[in-house]
């Protein structure tokens, strides 16, 4: 059976397990209908021109995993940011693992989507926010149809979360192949602040397909600082759909570190609904083998006097492939927009590929919008310069690659994350440098 058919029939089974009276049931139903009509995206679609899902859709994925869960903290510790105190919301094969988690309802909510969807007290919030920023798109709709579990985070007005919140999704390989669809809802109310770290990690080499949707609402003068760490097994694929709605005077930044996985697609959309908003999108991609990473971004400037900054760096070795498809949309009313987009890439080997496509659609006439994209090899002259000072070629290459990724790391506000990513880059490049950049 094709995956699409399997999902459609699984939906019927899923309906039997959930509360049909639930207010989101209609939303789920509409979503599955939309998915049924549209199906999985193909390369015929402009937004999927350079990323084919064919190779990952042919697996026979389990849609509902068995509830066998023998994972202990020591199995996952290295994948967590464990050197600082954090809230942790941990899922094993898509199911909440309370013994590995540290959730809270004190001052802020860092808990479960399943509770938010089912408990009456959350009903007004779900009504107000659920599926409100996610657009009609087939994979997002598929997630919506099956939406049941994930992280629910709400930072009330004026509260600054005192420690970062980690959303960690592990897969065990209990299934031959597993498809999981986490659904996260994050609400940062007016004047609130939060830092979030998200990771999807497979613990075995069994095939995993994650189709994740995260809806984020950033209130007036609120601050969101989000880190996505993608360094999964070569058998795991991730389609990450993150939709961020921002109100006036707010800041939202998302850093995406893509170091591994079979296929990774990041759909990252920002919608600016007020003035004086700042949106930051940064990414470092370092891959090799036949890995594929696709960054598909959208920043929709809908009001005047807002900024957006995009800076994506990619280093592609062997036969790896990358895509950057960055769209900036500036409405007619959005005067004085300052939008900057940059995508720089280094191809280490002849067979590595990057397709970089910046798109600017500007309907306002008084704006500052710029974009730039470079694709190159490491600068031979710079390598010789460094070698002439006694730095061997391998270290010189590493130093150049470090330097290349450096300005993306500059804006990382959690030192432990910065440290971790720095080390990860050193590991990927295969050297130990005597200093941190």
């Amino acid at each position, binding site marked *: 059976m094709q995956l699409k058919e399997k999902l459609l029939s699984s939906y019927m089974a899923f309906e039997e397990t959930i509360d049909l009276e639930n207010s989101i049931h209609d939303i789920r139903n509409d979503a599955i209908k939309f998915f049924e009509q549209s199906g999985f995206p193909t390369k015929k679609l402009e937004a999927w021109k350079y990323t084919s899902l064919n190779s990952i859709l042919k697996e026979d994925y389990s849609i509902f995993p068995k509830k066998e869960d023998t994972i202990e903290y020591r199995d996952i510790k290295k994948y967590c940011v464990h050197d600082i105190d954090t809230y942790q919301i941990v899922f094993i094969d898509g199911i909440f693992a309370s013994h590995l988690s540290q959730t809270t309802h004190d001052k802020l909510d860092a808990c479960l989507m399943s509770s938010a969807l089912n408990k009456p007290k959350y009903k007004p919030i779900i009504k107000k926010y659920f599926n409100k920023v996610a657009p009609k798109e087939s994979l997002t709709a598929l997630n919506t149809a099956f939406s049941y579990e994930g992280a629910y985070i709400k930072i009330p007005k004026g509260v600054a979360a005192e420690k970062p919140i980690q959303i960690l999704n592990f897969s065990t390989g209990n299934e031959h192949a597993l498809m999981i669809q986490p659904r996260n809802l994050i609400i940062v109310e007016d004047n609130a602040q939060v830092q979030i770290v998200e990771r999807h990690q497979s613990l075995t080499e069994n095939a995993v397909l994650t189709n994740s949707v995260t809806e984020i609402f950033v209130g007036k003068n609120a601050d969101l600082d989000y880190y996505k760490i993608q360094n999964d097994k070569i058998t795991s694929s991730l389609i990450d759909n993150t939709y961020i709605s921002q109100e006036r005077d707010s800041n939202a930044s998302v850093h995406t570190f893509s170091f591994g996985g079979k296929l990774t697609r990041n759909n990252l959309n920002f919608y600016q609904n007020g003035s004086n908003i700042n949106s930051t999108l940064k990414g470092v991609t370092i891959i090799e083998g036949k890995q594929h990473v696709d960054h598909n971004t959208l920043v929709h400037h809908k009001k005047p006097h807002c900024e957006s900054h995009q800076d994506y760096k990619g280093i592609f070795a062997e036969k790896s492939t990358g895509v950057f498809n960055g769209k900036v949309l500036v409405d007619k009313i959005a005067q004085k927009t300052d939008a900057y987009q940059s995508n720089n890439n280094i191809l280490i080997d002849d067979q590595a590929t990057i397709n970089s496509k910046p798109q600017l659609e500007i309907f306002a006439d008084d704006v500052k919008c710029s974009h730039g994209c470079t694709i190159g090899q490491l*600068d031979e002259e710079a390598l010789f310069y460094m070698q*002439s*000072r006694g730095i061997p*070629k391998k*270290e010189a290459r590493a130093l*150049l690659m*470090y330097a290349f990724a450096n300005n993306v790391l500059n804006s990382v506000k959690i030192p432990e994350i910065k440290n971790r990513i720095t080390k990860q880059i050193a590991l990927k490049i295969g050297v130990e440098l005597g*200093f941190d*950049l």
Partner: protein
Amino acid sequence: MLKINNLHAEVTGNKILKGLNLEIKPGEVHAIMGPNGSGKSTLASVIAGNEEYEATEGEILFEKSNISDLSADERAHKGIFLSFQYPVEIPGVTVTNFIKTAINQIRKAQGLKDMPANEMLKKIREKSALLHMDRKFLSRSLNEGFSGGEKKRNEIFQMAMLEPKLAILDETDSGLDIDALRVVADGVNKLRTKDNATLVITHYQRLLDYIVPDVVHVLVDGKIIKSGDKNLARELEERGYDWLKEETLV
């Protein structure tokens, strides 16, 4: 210290050096002068081990061993330093981090441990003072947005830090105003000892007023056609190179 015998070198198939001979002894300063395109910078690059250039014939002996097959970093480990005509900008790496990395990589190649941090700091302070360098300068990205003078000063600062046996200064005077030239030349002179040697490559005699050479060579069309003392440089400044070319033809 350095002995070059019958060196032929080419870049992308163009023959640039056509049988060059040169010998430099410890404690000496040699200057190579010559018109544009005569092969001056090629010679510097070939000695330093730039892979873009291919030495097709002859040999380069450094302290009696043939270094032709060594990579640029291995030559640096032996004590050869090239000050670039156009130092490369490396955004994201600070001057301090770069020099620390260079020193410790050289030490590693010599089987030594990393230089202790306080010793490194002391040395950086001392040598940057020698070049009248601002402290802020050290935490800037290497050569990024540096003026011509700052770049050259930074080259000599690195030379001071690395303490090479043979320093090759490729057009170090180009783009320098007179004050910067003095500071740079002064730095080079202070670094001179009886055990190290300097090869100054220049187009103009001006630099040689400050770094006084023991021997001046004239390089034309890939060969040294005349050598002499410092007065040869003055003569070249006054008369140009054409009279020498004619002389050789005769």
